[in-house]
Protein backbone atom coordinates (compact mmCIF):
# COMPACT_ATOMS: atom_id res chain seq x y z
CA UNK A 1 0.00 0.00 0.00
CA UNK A 2 0.93 3.66 -0.10
CA UNK A 3 2.71 4.58 3.08
CA UNK A 4 2.15 8.12 4.26
CA UNK A 5 3.00 10.23 7.28
CA UNK A 6 0.98 13.08 8.69
CA UNK A 7 2.51 16.46 7.96
CA UNK A 8 3.58 18.60 10.93
CA UNK A 9 0.43 20.25 12.26
CA UNK A 10 2.01 23.70 11.92
CA UNK A 11 2.44 23.15 8.21
CA UNK A 12 -1.14 21.95 7.79
CA UNK A 13 -2.39 24.87 9.83
CA UNK A 14 -0.49 27.35 7.70
CA UNK A 15 -1.87 25.87 4.51
CA UNK A 16 -5.48 25.96 5.68
CA UNK A 17 -5.24 29.31 7.43
CA UNK A 18 -6.67 31.38 4.56
CA UNK A 19 -9.87 29.32 4.69
CA UNK A 20 -12.56 28.95 7.29
CA UNK A 21 -14.92 26.26 6.02
CA UNK A 22 -12.89 23.19 5.23
CA UNK A 23 -13.73 19.60 4.35
CA UNK A 24 -11.34 17.06 5.82
CA UNK A 25 -11.43 14.07 3.50
CA UNK A 26 -10.05 10.76 4.69
CA UNK A 27 -9.22 7.86 2.42
CA UNK A 28 -10.17 4.28 3.29
CA UNK A 29 -8.07 2.98 0.43
CA UNK A 30 -4.51 1.82 0.68
CA UNK A 31 -2.99 4.57 2.82
CA UNK A 32 -1.19 2.99 5.69
CA UNK A 33 -1.77 3.54 8.57
CA UNK A 34 -5.41 3.85 7.50
CA UNK A 35 -6.46 7.48 7.14
CA UNK A 36 -10.18 6.92 7.32
CA UNK A 37 -12.94 8.66 9.24
CA UNK A 38 -11.22 8.31 12.65
CA UNK A 39 -8.08 10.01 11.43
CA UNK A 40 -10.18 12.72 9.81
CA UNK A 41 -12.10 13.39 13.03
CA UNK A 42 -8.95 13.36 15.15
CA UNK A 43 -7.30 15.84 12.82
CA UNK A 44 -10.42 18.00 12.99
CA UNK A 45 -10.20 18.07 16.78
CA UNK A 46 -6.48 18.87 16.75
CA UNK A 47 -6.85 21.66 14.21
CA UNK A 48 -9.79 23.13 16.09
CA UNK A 49 -7.69 23.25 19.25
CA UNK A 50 -4.70 24.67 17.40
CA UNK A 51 -6.93 27.23 15.67
CA UNK A 52 -8.40 28.36 18.98
CA UNK A 53 -4.91 28.99 20.33
CA UNK A 54 -4.22 31.21 17.34
CA UNK A 55 -7.57 32.95 17.57
CA UNK A 56 -8.94 31.32 14.44
CA UNK A 57 -12.25 29.57 14.31
CA UNK A 58 -12.49 26.94 11.61
CA UNK A 59 -15.62 25.21 10.51
CA UNK A 60 -14.71 21.66 9.57
CA UNK A 61 -16.72 18.96 7.94
CA UNK A 62 -15.38 15.43 7.79
CA UNK A 63 -15.88 12.55 5.42
CA UNK A 64 -13.96 9.60 4.16
CA UNK A 65 -13.70 8.37 0.60
CA UNK A 66 -13.45 4.66 -0.15
CA UNK A 67 -10.62 5.36 -2.60
CA UNK A 68 -9.59 8.96 -3.17
CA UNK A 69 -7.67 8.01 -6.31
CA UNK A 70 -10.89 6.88 -7.97
CA UNK A 71 -12.61 9.72 -9.79
CA UNK A 72 -16.12 8.33 -9.46
CA UNK A 73 -15.87 7.55 -5.76
CA UNK A 74 -14.17 10.85 -4.97
CA UNK A 75 -16.57 12.98 -6.97
CA UNK A 76 -19.60 11.34 -5.40
CA UNK A 77 -18.17 11.68 -1.88
CA UNK A 78 -16.99 15.29 -2.20
CA UNK A 79 -19.82 16.72 -4.28
CA UNK A 80 -22.38 17.04 -1.46
CA UNK A 81 -19.97 19.33 0.40
CA UNK A 82 -18.80 21.54 -2.46
CA UNK A 83 -21.26 24.37 -1.84
CA UNK A 84 -20.46 24.47 1.86
CA UNK A 85 -16.68 24.50 1.92
CA UNK A 86 -13.90 26.76 0.74
CA UNK A 87 -11.20 24.09 0.59
CA UNK A 88 -10.53 20.37 0.95
CA UNK A 89 -7.85 18.98 3.26
CA UNK A 90 -6.97 15.53 2.00
CA UNK A 91 -5.69 12.65 4.10
CA UNK A 92 -4.93 10.54 1.04
CA UNK A 93 -1.59 9.91 -0.67
CA UNK A 94 -0.53 12.36 -3.35
CA UNK A 95 -3.03 10.92 -5.79
CA UNK A 96 -6.00 11.95 -3.64
CA UNK A 97 -5.55 15.73 -3.70
CA UNK A 98 -4.84 15.53 -7.42
CA UNK A 99 -8.07 13.67 -8.04
CA UNK A 100 -9.91 16.42 -6.19
CA UNK A 101 -7.99 19.09 -8.12
CA UNK A 102 -8.81 17.48 -11.44
CA UNK A 103 -12.53 17.12 -10.90
CA UNK A 104 -13.20 20.21 -8.80
CA UNK A 105 -11.29 22.89 -10.72
CA UNK A 106 -12.52 25.74 -8.52
CA UNK A 107 -11.94 24.09 -5.17
CA UNK A 108 -8.54 24.50 -3.47
CA UNK A 109 -7.18 21.19 -2.16
CA UNK A 110 -4.42 20.80 0.41
CA UNK A 111 -2.46 17.73 1.41
CA UNK A 112 -2.34 16.64 5.06
CA UNK A 113 0.04 13.78 4.30
CA UNK A 114 3.49 13.28 2.98
CA UNK A 115 3.49 10.21 0.75
CA UNK A 116 6.56 8.13 1.44
CA UNK A 117 6.48 5.07 -0.77
CA UNK A 118 4.69 1.95 -1.92
CA UNK A 119 5.58 -0.38 0.87
CA UNK A 120 5.23 -3.44 3.01
CA UNK A 121 3.59 -3.04 6.41
CA UNK A 122 5.45 -5.34 8.77
CA UNK A 123 2.95 -5.40 11.62
CA UNK A 124 5.13 -7.41 13.97
CA UNK A 125 8.09 -5.07 13.63
CA UNK A 126 5.77 -2.10 13.60
CA UNK A 127 7.61 -0.73 10.60
CA UNK A 128 6.91 -0.11 6.96
CA UNK A 129 9.40 -0.67 4.20
CA UNK A 130 9.81 0.87 0.77
CA UNK A 131 9.37 -2.00 -1.65
CA UNK A 132 8.12 -0.90 -5.06
CA UNK A 133 9.16 2.00 -7.29
CA UNK A 134 6.39 1.48 -9.84
CA UNK A 135 9.05 1.23 -12.56
CA UNK A 136 6.63 -0.25 -15.06
CA UNK A 137 8.78 -3.27 -15.93
CA UNK A 138 8.74 -5.77 -13.08
CA UNK A 139 11.71 -8.12 -12.71
CA UNK A 140 10.73 -9.77 -9.41
CA UNK A 141 10.48 -13.11 -11.21
CA UNK A 142 14.25 -13.02 -11.69
CA UNK A 143 15.15 -11.67 -8.27
CA UNK A 144 13.39 -14.00 -5.90
CA UNK A 145 10.58 -11.54 -5.16
CA UNK A 146 12.94 -8.86 -3.85
CA UNK A 147 13.10 -5.64 -5.85
CA UNK A 148 16.63 -4.33 -6.52
CA UNK A 149 15.30 -1.25 -8.31
CA UNK A 150 13.80 -0.11 -4.99
CA UNK A 151 15.87 -1.79 -2.35
CA UNK A 152 19.40 -1.59 -3.81
CA UNK A 153 20.72 1.91 -3.06
CA UNK A 154 22.23 1.98 -6.53
CA UNK A 155 19.20 0.48 -8.20
CA UNK A 156 21.42 -2.14 -9.82
CA UNK A 157 19.69 -4.58 -12.13
CA UNK A 158 22.65 -6.95 -12.10
CA UNK A 159 24.27 -7.26 -8.70
CA UNK A 160 25.82 -7.41 -6.32
CA UNK A 161 28.22 -4.50 -6.66
CA UNK A 162 30.72 -5.92 -4.18
CA UNK A 163 30.60 -2.96 -1.84
CA UNK A 164 28.48 -4.53 0.87
CA UNK A 165 29.94 -5.60 4.19
CA UNK A 166 28.22 -7.94 6.63
CA UNK A 167 25.17 -7.87 4.42
CA UNK A 168 24.78 -4.10 4.74
CA UNK A 169 25.00 -1.51 2.00
CA UNK A 170 28.18 0.58 1.69
CA UNK A 171 26.09 3.69 1.21
CA UNK A 172 23.93 3.12 4.27
CA UNK A 173 25.12 0.72 6.94
CA UNK A 174 21.56 0.50 8.32
CA UNK A 175 20.26 -0.86 5.07
CA UNK A 176 20.37 -4.50 3.97
CA UNK A 177 22.17 -5.15 0.71
CA UNK A 178 19.28 -6.03 -1.63
CA UNK A 179 21.48 -8.22 -3.80
CA UNK A 180 22.68 -10.26 -0.85
CA UNK A 181 19.05 -10.79 0.11
CA UNK A 182 18.29 -11.79 -3.47
CA UNK A 183 21.22 -14.23 -3.50
CA UNK A 184 20.17 -15.86 -0.22
CA UNK A 185 16.58 -16.13 -1.32
CA UNK A 186 17.43 -17.64 -4.71
CA UNK A 187 19.77 -20.09 -3.01
CA UNK A 188 16.99 -21.12 -0.67
CA UNK A 189 14.64 -21.61 -3.56
CA UNK A 190 17.26 -23.57 -5.53
CA UNK A 191 17.13 -20.98 -8.32
CA UNK A 192 20.64 -19.56 -8.15
CA UNK A 193 20.98 -19.90 -11.91
CA UNK A 194 18.64 -16.90 -12.20
CA UNK A 195 21.26 -14.62 -10.72
CA UNK A 196 23.45 -15.24 -13.74
CA UNK A 197 20.74 -14.06 -16.08
CA UNK A 198 21.64 -10.67 -17.49
CA UNK A 199 19.01 -7.95 -17.27
CA UNK A 200 19.58 -5.21 -19.84
CA UNK A 201 19.22 -1.55 -18.99
CA UNK A 202 15.66 -0.79 -18.08
CA UNK A 203 13.37 1.16 -20.35
CA UNK A 204 11.99 3.51 -17.74
CA UNK A 205 9.65 5.04 -20.29
CA UNK A 206 7.57 1.91 -19.75
CA UNK A 207 6.61 3.44 -16.40
CA UNK A 208 4.87 6.09 -18.44
CA UNK A 209 2.47 8.76 -17.29
CA UNK A 210 -0.80 7.35 -18.54
CA UNK A 211 -2.26 3.89 -18.94
CA UNK A 212 -5.43 2.90 -20.71
CA UNK A 213 -6.72 -0.28 -19.15
Amino acid at each position, binding site marked *: MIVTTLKPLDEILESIFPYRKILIAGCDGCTQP*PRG*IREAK*TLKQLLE*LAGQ*LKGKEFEFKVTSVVKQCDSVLTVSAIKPYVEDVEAVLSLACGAGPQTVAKFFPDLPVLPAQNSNFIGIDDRQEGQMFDSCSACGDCILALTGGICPVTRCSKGLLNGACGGASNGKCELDPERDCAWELIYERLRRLGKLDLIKKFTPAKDYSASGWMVTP
Partner: protein
Amino acid sequence: MSQPVAEPKVAVNINEDYCSRCTICGSLCPYDAITKDHENNIMVLDIEKCQVCGICYSACPAKAIDTIYYSSSSLMKYLEKARPRYKSDNLVIMCKGSAPDFAGVGKLFGVKDFIPLSVPCVGRISEDLLLGVLADGIKKIDILACDEDYCRFHRGSPLTGRRVIALNRLLEQLGYGPEAITLKRNSLKVTVDKDLCIACGNCVFYCPYNAPTLTSAGGISFDLDACRGCGLCVALCPAFALDLDNWERDRISNLIPQMLAEMKPPKILVFRCQWAVYPPLNGDMGPNIGTIELPCAGRIEAFHILEAIQSGADGVMVVACSEDDCKQEKVSAKAEHVVANIKAKLDQIGLGDKLNFASVSPRYPGQVEEKVREFRQSLKGAKKGIKKGEDK
Protein backbone atom coordinates in the same frame (compact mmCIF):
# COMPACT_ATOMS: atom_id res chain seq x y z
CA MET B 1 23.90 7.28 53.24
CA SER B 2 20.77 5.24 53.01
CA GLN B 3 17.63 6.71 54.47
CA PRO B 4 15.20 4.44 56.25
CA VAL B 5 12.35 3.88 53.82
CA ALA B 6 8.86 3.42 55.17
CA GLU B 7 7.20 0.25 53.91
CA PRO B 8 4.48 1.27 51.50
CA LYS B 9 1.01 0.55 52.81
CA VAL B 10 -0.52 -2.33 50.95
CA ALA B 11 -4.08 -3.34 50.26
CA VAL B 12 -4.02 -6.89 51.62
CA ASN B 13 -2.51 -8.18 54.82
CA ILE B 14 -2.43 -11.50 56.63
CA ASN B 15 -2.88 -11.27 60.38
CA GLU B 16 -0.55 -13.89 61.80
CA ASP B 17 -2.31 -13.95 65.16
CA TYR B 18 -5.57 -15.16 63.66
CA CYS B 19 -4.12 -17.34 60.89
CA SER B 20 -4.61 -21.07 61.45
CA ARG B 21 -2.17 -21.99 58.62
CA CYS B 22 -4.90 -23.93 56.83
CA THR B 23 -3.46 -22.75 53.45
CA ILE B 24 -6.89 -22.33 51.86
CA CYS B 25 -5.92 -18.81 50.80
CA GLY B 26 -2.83 -20.03 49.01
CA SER B 27 -4.69 -22.80 47.26
CA LEU B 28 -7.35 -20.40 45.95
CA CYS B 29 -5.08 -17.49 44.98
CA PRO B 30 -5.09 -17.30 41.17
CA TYR B 31 -1.65 -15.72 41.19
CA ASP B 32 0.26 -17.94 43.65
CA ALA B 33 0.83 -14.85 45.75
CA ILE B 34 0.32 -16.64 49.06
CA THR B 35 2.62 -19.48 50.07
CA LYS B 36 3.40 -21.24 53.29
CA ASP B 37 6.78 -20.59 54.87
CA HIS B 38 7.26 -24.04 56.42
CA GLU B 39 10.34 -23.05 58.35
CA ASN B 40 8.60 -20.31 60.28
CA ASN B 41 5.15 -21.88 59.96
CA ILE B 42 3.50 -18.76 58.62
CA MET B 43 1.57 -17.84 55.48
CA VAL B 44 3.46 -15.29 53.40
CA LEU B 45 1.88 -12.87 50.97
CA ASP B 46 3.99 -11.67 48.06
CA ILE B 47 2.22 -8.37 47.46
CA GLU B 48 3.93 -7.88 44.10
CA LYS B 49 2.16 -10.94 42.78
CA CYS B 50 -1.16 -10.05 44.40
CA GLN B 51 -3.79 -8.65 42.02
CA VAL B 52 -6.18 -7.66 44.84
CA CYS B 53 -9.05 -9.86 43.68
CA GLY B 54 -10.15 -10.48 47.28
CA ILE B 55 -10.70 -14.22 46.85
CA CYS B 56 -8.39 -15.01 49.78
CA TYR B 57 -10.20 -12.47 51.90
CA SER B 58 -13.57 -14.05 51.29
CA ALA B 59 -12.26 -17.60 51.68
CA CYS B 60 -10.26 -17.34 54.90
CA PRO B 61 -12.13 -19.36 57.53
CA ALA B 62 -10.28 -17.59 60.35
CA LYS B 63 -10.90 -14.04 59.03
CA ALA B 64 -7.18 -13.54 59.26
CA ILE B 65 -6.92 -11.62 56.00
CA ASP B 66 -7.63 -7.91 55.90
CA THR B 67 -8.32 -5.90 52.81
CA ILE B 68 -8.83 -2.20 52.59
CA TYR B 69 -11.29 -2.52 49.70
CA TYR B 70 -14.90 -3.56 50.10
CA SER B 71 -14.44 -5.39 53.38
CA SER B 72 -17.57 -7.07 54.73
CA SER B 73 -18.01 -4.42 57.39
CA SER B 74 -17.73 -1.55 54.91
CA LEU B 75 -20.21 -3.30 52.62
CA MET B 76 -22.67 -3.71 55.51
CA LYS B 77 -22.30 0.00 56.26
CA TYR B 78 -22.89 0.83 52.61
CA LEU B 79 -26.04 -1.29 52.63
CA GLU B 80 -27.37 0.42 55.70
CA LYS B 81 -27.15 3.77 53.93
CA ALA B 82 -28.22 2.49 50.52
CA ARG B 83 -31.40 0.71 51.62
CA PRO B 84 -33.49 3.75 52.39
CA ARG B 85 -32.02 5.54 49.38
CA TYR B 86 -33.02 2.87 46.90
CA LYS B 87 -36.21 1.93 48.80
CA SER B 88 -35.73 -1.75 48.05
CA ASP B 89 -35.04 -5.04 49.80
CA ASN B 90 -33.46 -6.52 46.72
CA LEU B 91 -29.66 -6.44 46.61
CA VAL B 92 -27.90 -6.86 43.30
CA ILE B 93 -24.18 -7.56 43.57
CA MET B 94 -22.37 -7.23 40.28
CA CYS B 95 -18.86 -7.61 39.02
CA LYS B 96 -17.71 -4.46 37.25
CA GLY B 97 -16.16 -6.63 34.58
CA SER B 98 -19.42 -7.89 33.14
CA ALA B 99 -22.07 -5.52 34.43
CA PRO B 100 -23.81 -3.22 31.97
CA ASP B 101 -25.25 -0.01 33.43
CA PHE B 102 -27.66 -0.38 36.36
CA ALA B 103 -30.73 -0.35 34.13
CA GLY B 104 -29.21 -3.13 32.06
CA VAL B 105 -28.41 -5.12 35.16
CA GLY B 106 -31.97 -4.74 36.38
CA LYS B 107 -33.22 -5.99 33.04
CA LEU B 108 -31.01 -9.08 33.29
CA PHE B 109 -32.66 -9.99 36.59
CA GLY B 110 -36.09 -8.68 35.70
CA VAL B 111 -36.13 -6.19 38.57
CA LYS B 112 -36.73 -2.46 38.54
CA ASP B 113 -35.88 -1.27 42.01
CA PHE B 114 -32.84 -2.69 43.68
CA ILE B 115 -29.80 -1.79 45.74
CA PRO B 116 -26.82 -1.91 43.41
CA LEU B 117 -23.43 -3.02 44.66
CA SER B 118 -20.67 -3.00 42.10
CA VAL B 119 -17.39 -4.70 43.02
CA PRO B 120 -14.27 -5.74 41.18
CA CYS B 121 -14.92 -9.50 41.13
CA VAL B 122 -17.78 -11.08 43.05
CA GLY B 123 -15.25 -13.65 44.28
CA ARG B 124 -14.46 -11.24 47.09
CA ILE B 125 -17.96 -11.62 48.56
CA SER B 126 -17.89 -14.14 51.39
CA GLU B 127 -20.68 -16.53 52.40
CA ASP B 128 -21.05 -14.92 55.79
CA LEU B 129 -21.59 -11.52 54.20
CA LEU B 130 -24.40 -12.94 52.08
CA LEU B 131 -25.96 -14.61 55.11
CA GLY B 132 -25.51 -11.47 57.18
CA VAL B 133 -27.27 -9.42 54.54
CA LEU B 134 -30.24 -11.82 54.54
CA ALA B 135 -30.30 -11.85 58.32
CA ASP B 136 -30.42 -8.06 58.13
CA GLY B 137 -33.70 -8.17 56.29
CA ILE B 138 -32.71 -8.13 52.64
CA LYS B 139 -35.28 -10.33 50.93
CA LYS B 140 -33.48 -11.23 47.76
CA ILE B 141 -29.90 -11.28 46.52
CA ASP B 142 -29.03 -11.35 42.85
CA ILE B 143 -25.43 -11.82 41.81
CA LEU B 144 -24.08 -10.98 38.41
CA ALA B 145 -20.77 -12.69 37.79
CA CYS B 146 -18.66 -12.87 34.65
CA ASP B 147 -18.91 -15.85 32.34
CA GLU B 148 -16.45 -18.29 33.83
CA ASP B 149 -13.87 -17.99 31.07
CA TYR B 150 -14.27 -14.19 31.09
CA CYS B 151 -13.41 -13.77 34.79
CA ARG B 152 -10.47 -11.38 35.04
CA PHE B 153 -9.28 -13.21 38.13
CA HIS B 154 -9.88 -16.67 36.65
CA ARG B 155 -11.29 -18.21 39.81
CA GLY B 156 -13.62 -15.52 41.13
CA SER B 157 -16.63 -16.42 39.04
CA PRO B 158 -16.40 -20.24 39.31
CA LEU B 159 -15.88 -19.95 43.07
CA THR B 160 -18.93 -17.73 43.43
CA GLY B 161 -20.96 -20.28 41.48
CA ARG B 162 -20.05 -22.99 43.97
CA ARG B 163 -20.75 -20.72 46.92
CA VAL B 164 -24.19 -19.81 45.66
CA ILE B 165 -25.17 -23.47 45.15
CA ALA B 166 -24.03 -24.39 48.67
CA LEU B 167 -25.71 -21.37 50.26
CA ASN B 168 -29.00 -21.93 48.45
CA ARG B 169 -29.16 -25.51 49.77
CA LEU B 170 -28.56 -24.24 53.25
CA LEU B 171 -31.08 -21.42 52.89
CA GLU B 172 -33.70 -23.75 51.50
CA GLN B 173 -33.43 -25.87 54.62
CA LEU B 174 -33.94 -22.71 56.62
CA GLY B 175 -37.14 -22.01 54.71
CA TYR B 176 -35.91 -19.31 52.34
CA GLY B 177 -37.23 -21.02 49.21
CA PRO B 178 -35.16 -22.77 46.56
CA GLU B 179 -33.38 -19.74 45.14
CA ALA B 180 -32.81 -17.08 47.76
CA ILE B 181 -29.71 -16.09 45.87
CA THR B 182 -29.80 -16.04 42.10
CA LEU B 183 -26.68 -16.05 40.03
CA LYS B 184 -26.40 -14.94 36.44
CA ARG B 185 -23.37 -14.68 34.27
CA ASN B 186 -22.55 -12.15 31.61
CA SER B 187 -19.76 -10.85 29.39
CA LEU B 188 -19.34 -7.55 27.59
CA LYS B 189 -17.98 -7.93 24.11
CA VAL B 190 -17.26 -6.26 20.84
CA THR B 191 -20.03 -5.35 18.40
CA VAL B 192 -19.44 -4.97 14.68
CA ASP B 193 -21.01 -2.75 12.03
CA LYS B 194 -19.95 -4.59 8.89
CA ASP B 195 -21.16 -1.77 6.67
CA LEU B 196 -18.49 0.51 8.07
CA CYS B 197 -15.59 -1.94 7.86
CA ILE B 198 -12.86 -0.88 5.41
CA ALA B 199 -10.97 -4.16 5.64
CA CYS B 200 -7.76 -2.57 6.93
CA GLY B 201 -6.99 -5.51 9.20
CA ASN B 202 -6.09 -3.41 12.25
CA CYS B 203 -8.34 -5.41 14.57
CA VAL B 204 -6.95 -8.68 13.26
CA PHE B 205 -3.45 -7.52 14.07
CA TYR B 206 -4.11 -5.89 17.43
CA CYS B 207 -6.50 -8.42 19.01
CA PRO B 208 -4.48 -10.40 21.58
CA TYR B 209 -7.03 -13.24 21.42
CA ASN B 210 -7.30 -13.81 17.66
CA ALA B 211 -11.02 -13.08 17.83
CA PRO B 212 -11.40 -11.28 14.48
CA THR B 213 -10.90 -12.70 11.03
CA LEU B 214 -11.08 -10.70 7.85
CA THR B 215 -11.75 -12.01 4.40
CA SER B 216 -12.76 -8.90 2.46
CA ALA B 217 -14.22 -5.43 2.97
CA GLY B 218 -17.18 -6.01 5.26
CA GLY B 219 -15.96 -9.56 5.61
CA ILE B 220 -14.95 -8.98 9.22
CA SER B 221 -16.21 -11.49 11.73
CA PHE B 222 -15.48 -11.93 15.41
CA ASP B 223 -15.32 -15.15 17.35
CA LEU B 224 -17.18 -13.80 20.37
CA ASP B 225 -16.12 -16.76 22.50
CA ALA B 226 -12.56 -15.61 22.05
CA CYS B 227 -13.28 -11.89 22.61
CA ARG B 228 -12.31 -10.77 26.11
CA GLY B 229 -13.77 -7.30 25.87
CA CYS B 230 -10.60 -5.25 26.28
CA GLY B 231 -11.75 -2.74 23.68
CA LEU B 232 -8.38 -2.29 22.01
CA CYS B 233 -9.75 -3.04 18.54
CA VAL B 234 -12.58 -0.60 19.15
CA ALA B 235 -10.15 2.15 20.07
CA LEU B 236 -7.98 1.52 17.04
CA CYS B 237 -10.54 0.83 14.30
CA PRO B 238 -9.96 3.63 11.76
CA ALA B 239 -13.50 3.36 10.45
CA PHE B 240 -15.47 3.42 13.74
CA ALA B 241 -16.86 0.04 12.67
CA LEU B 242 -16.44 -1.55 16.11
CA ASP B 243 -17.93 -0.77 19.49
CA LEU B 244 -17.96 -2.38 22.90
CA ASP B 245 -20.93 -3.33 25.06
CA ASN B 246 -21.40 -0.81 27.85
CA TRP B 247 -18.38 1.20 26.75
CA GLU B 248 -19.89 2.48 23.55
CA ARG B 249 -18.14 5.41 21.92
CA ASP B 250 -21.25 7.57 22.16
CA ARG B 251 -21.85 6.77 25.80
CA ILE B 252 -18.32 7.88 26.70
CA SER B 253 -18.65 10.93 24.43
CA ASN B 254 -21.82 11.96 26.26
CA LEU B 255 -20.25 11.43 29.66
CA ILE B 256 -17.26 13.68 29.00
CA PRO B 257 -18.98 17.10 28.75
CA GLN B 258 -21.51 16.06 31.42
CA MET B 259 -18.78 15.34 33.94
CA LEU B 260 -16.75 18.40 33.05
CA ALA B 261 -19.78 20.66 33.45
CA GLU B 262 -20.14 19.48 37.04
CA MET B 263 -16.48 19.92 37.92
CA LYS B 264 -14.64 22.94 39.25
CA PRO B 265 -11.40 24.22 37.71
CA PRO B 266 -8.67 23.13 37.42
CA LYS B 267 -10.60 20.25 35.86
CA ILE B 268 -8.79 16.95 35.54
CA LEU B 269 -10.57 14.15 33.77
CA VAL B 270 -9.20 10.71 34.57
CA PHE B 271 -9.85 7.74 32.31
CA ARG B 272 -9.04 4.77 34.45
CA CYS B 273 -8.83 1.06 33.91
CA GLN B 274 -11.32 -0.53 36.26
CA TRP B 275 -8.70 -3.01 37.42
CA ALA B 276 -5.99 -0.40 38.10
CA VAL B 277 -8.02 1.65 40.55
CA TYR B 278 -10.62 0.45 43.04
CA PRO B 279 -12.54 3.50 44.08
CA PRO B 280 -14.00 3.58 47.58
CA LEU B 281 -17.75 2.89 47.81
CA ASN B 282 -19.58 6.13 46.97
CA GLY B 283 -16.17 7.70 46.83
CA ASP B 284 -15.15 10.52 44.61
CA MET B 285 -11.89 12.38 44.34
CA GLY B 286 -13.06 15.91 44.97
CA PRO B 287 -14.63 18.66 42.83
CA ASN B 288 -11.65 19.00 40.48
CA ILE B 289 -11.33 15.38 39.49
CA GLY B 290 -13.76 13.47 37.31
CA THR B 291 -13.29 9.83 36.50
CA ILE B 292 -14.51 7.69 33.66
CA GLU B 293 -14.02 3.98 34.04
CA LEU B 294 -12.79 1.86 31.17
CA PRO B 295 -12.91 -1.95 30.88
CA CYS B 296 -9.16 -1.85 30.28
CA ALA B 297 -6.92 1.07 29.40
CA GLY B 298 -6.89 -0.39 25.88
CA ARG B 299 -10.34 1.11 25.37
CA ILE B 300 -8.92 4.65 25.50
CA GLU B 301 -9.44 6.53 22.27
CA ALA B 302 -7.47 9.56 21.13
CA PHE B 303 -10.85 10.86 20.03
CA HIS B 304 -12.15 10.92 23.63
CA ILE B 305 -8.98 12.50 24.98
CA LEU B 306 -9.30 15.36 22.49
CA GLU B 307 -13.01 15.62 23.19
CA ALA B 308 -12.22 16.12 26.88
CA ILE B 309 -9.71 18.87 26.14
CA GLN B 310 -12.18 20.52 23.78
CA SER B 311 -14.89 20.34 26.43
CA GLY B 312 -12.75 22.30 28.85
CA ALA B 313 -10.61 19.78 30.69
CA ASP B 314 -7.45 21.42 31.98
CA GLY B 315 -5.81 18.04 32.14
CA VAL B 316 -6.55 14.52 30.97
CA MET B 317 -5.06 11.47 32.61
CA VAL B 318 -5.12 7.88 31.47
CA VAL B 319 -4.55 5.50 34.33
CA ALA B 320 -3.67 1.91 33.49
CA CYS B 321 -2.27 -1.22 35.07
CA SER B 322 1.37 -1.94 34.48
CA GLU B 323 2.09 -4.26 31.59
CA ASP B 324 2.66 -7.15 34.00
CA ASP B 325 -0.51 -6.51 35.97
CA CYS B 326 -2.72 -6.12 32.89
CA LYS B 327 -5.73 -8.42 33.16
CA GLN B 328 -5.69 -8.63 29.39
CA GLU B 329 -2.77 -9.76 27.27
CA LYS B 330 -0.46 -6.80 27.93
CA VAL B 331 -3.03 -4.48 26.41
CA SER B 332 -2.09 -1.67 28.80
CA ALA B 333 1.24 -1.32 27.00
CA LYS B 334 -0.63 -0.71 23.76
CA ALA B 335 -2.79 1.86 25.52
CA GLU B 336 0.36 3.68 26.58
CA HIS B 337 1.41 3.73 22.95
CA VAL B 338 -1.92 5.19 21.86
CA VAL B 339 -1.61 7.92 24.49
CA ALA B 340 2.02 8.68 23.56
CA ASN B 341 0.97 8.96 19.94
CA ILE B 342 -1.73 11.55 20.52
CA LYS B 343 0.45 13.35 23.07
CA ALA B 344 3.10 13.81 20.37
CA LYS B 345 0.50 15.50 18.20
CA LEU B 346 -0.71 17.66 21.08
CA ASP B 347 2.92 18.61 21.69
CA GLN B 348 3.05 20.01 18.18
CA ILE B 349 0.35 22.53 19.03
CA GLY B 350 1.66 23.22 22.52
CA LEU B 351 -0.94 21.23 24.45
CA GLY B 352 1.02 18.07 25.20
CA ASP B 353 1.31 19.03 28.88
CA LYS B 354 -2.41 18.54 29.28
CA LEU B 355 -2.14 14.80 28.79
CA ASN B 356 -0.64 12.33 31.18
CA PHE B 357 -0.34 8.56 31.38
CA ALA B 358 0.26 6.71 34.63
CA SER B 359 0.29 3.08 35.61
CA VAL B 360 -0.82 2.18 39.10
CA SER B 361 -2.00 -0.82 41.04
CA PRO B 362 -4.77 -1.11 43.62
CA ARG B 363 -2.28 -3.04 45.76
CA TYR B 364 -0.86 0.33 46.77
CA PRO B 365 -3.73 2.40 48.10
CA GLY B 366 -3.29 6.10 47.49
CA GLN B 367 -1.07 5.58 44.49
CA VAL B 368 -3.54 6.98 42.02
CA GLU B 369 -4.24 10.01 44.22
CA GLU B 370 -0.50 10.63 44.34
CA LYS B 371 -0.18 10.43 40.54
CA VAL B 372 -3.12 12.80 40.10
CA ARG B 373 -1.58 15.21 42.58
CA GLU B 374 1.72 15.16 40.70
CA PHE B 375 -0.06 15.78 37.42
CA ARG B 376 -2.00 18.65 38.94
CA GLN B 377 1.23 20.21 40.13
CA SER B 378 2.72 19.91 36.66
CA LEU B 379 -0.35 21.58 35.20
CA LYS B 380 0.13 24.56 37.46
CA GLY B 381 3.51 25.05 35.83
CA ALA B 382 2.11 24.83 32.31
CA LYS B 383 1.26 28.18 30.91
CA LYS B 384 -1.22 27.99 28.10
CA GLY B 385 -4.92 27.78 28.65
CA ILE B 386 -7.38 27.51 25.83
CA LYS B 387 -9.13 30.76 25.39
CA LYS B 388 -10.28 32.20 22.17
CA GLY B 389 -7.90 34.72 20.70
CA GLU B 390 -5.42 34.43 23.54
CA ASP B 391 -2.38 34.97 21.36
CA LYS B 392 -3.80 38.06 19.73
